[in-house]
């Protein structure tokens, strides 16, 4: 009885792990890619850590604000 219960537990744990991997891996991949210097959105080849995507996004936001005549 006890061993069947622990097998059951392992199956549940495995299922939950798989499920949350399915939920989160795509998002984790996307986050990693946001810091890859590669022009193409890929993890490999890793061309080095960069913040340029974030910076260019911020710059674009600033440009749009300036065009609309707002000061930051």
């Amino acid at each position: 009885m006890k061993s069947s219960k622990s097998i059951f537990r392992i199956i549940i744990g495995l299922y939950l792990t798989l499920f949350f991997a399915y939920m989160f891996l795509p998002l984790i991949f996307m986050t990693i890619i946001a810091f890859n210097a590669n022009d193409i959105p890929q993890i490999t080849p890793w061309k080095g850590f960069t913040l340029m995507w974030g910076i260019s996004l911020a710059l674009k936001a600033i440009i749009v604000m300036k065009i609309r005549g707002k000061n930051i």
Partner: protein
Amino acid sequence: MRDFWNTALKDLGKIGVAYILITVGVWVVFMILIPQLIMFDYSLRPMLPLRDIGGPKDVWTLKNYMVFFTNRLHMAIFFKTIWSSLIVTVTALTICYPIAFYLAKVARGAKIGLLMLGLIIPYWINELLRLFAWQIILADMGILNQFLIFLGIIADPINFRMGNGAVILGMTYAYILFMVFPIYNVMESLDRNQLDAARDLGASWLRIHYKIVMPHAKPGIAVGCTMTFMLAAGTVAAPQLLGSPSSFWFTQVINTNFECANWNLGAAYATVLMLLCVVFMFMMLKLFKVGLKELTQ
């Protein structure tokens, strides 16, 4: 019905009842009824140049609907959309049922909160971004292909986005939460003693689920299935981002009609899709023998 009004008046007062009636009424009329009626009206009129609108040629006709029912390609796409949405619904139900049961009846204490958070966090991220993530994974030189090549399972990248598989996968991923929470909500109200009693009397876990949990969870399953089906049948983002040129979806047909400025034909197609969703909803209610009243619990 009279009891309902009496309790409502007692609990909320005259002003409260009036407020709810007015806000709900305004919402239903202006946000649901009028737009749908305008679309229905569009769908019944032929597409005309601007100067003919309101003229003698601008009469109600079923021509737009005839275009749909005589176009075999569009009919095929329509049935493909239904079929794929059903696959998405069944897959989501299969994946979510154990999760919902675990969350509602097995997990205890802080673990529930943690798992709940894990379910909700992906939904803080926009649906489009989540679909883009899958695009990155499934691309020709994407993560999945590179991983499989690295393992030596395949030599050349597989085009995962051929056919409908990628779109179905993306939809399942995007709408799984709409299946988990309705089922979780009803399962939570199930008395744990019932499960213990059944177990003590020697029922197998399969029988417990079939005889106790599923009948109790019926309204939640019905709601989850309807929502997932409607979202899957109505999304244009998933096929647009994950589909290939060889696979075309009904929502994309509607979209193309509107982009080609044939709003009337687009409206007719959209009406057909809406009717499908309504029919599906009532079929689910019938199938699970759930009344509209139970659905709102």
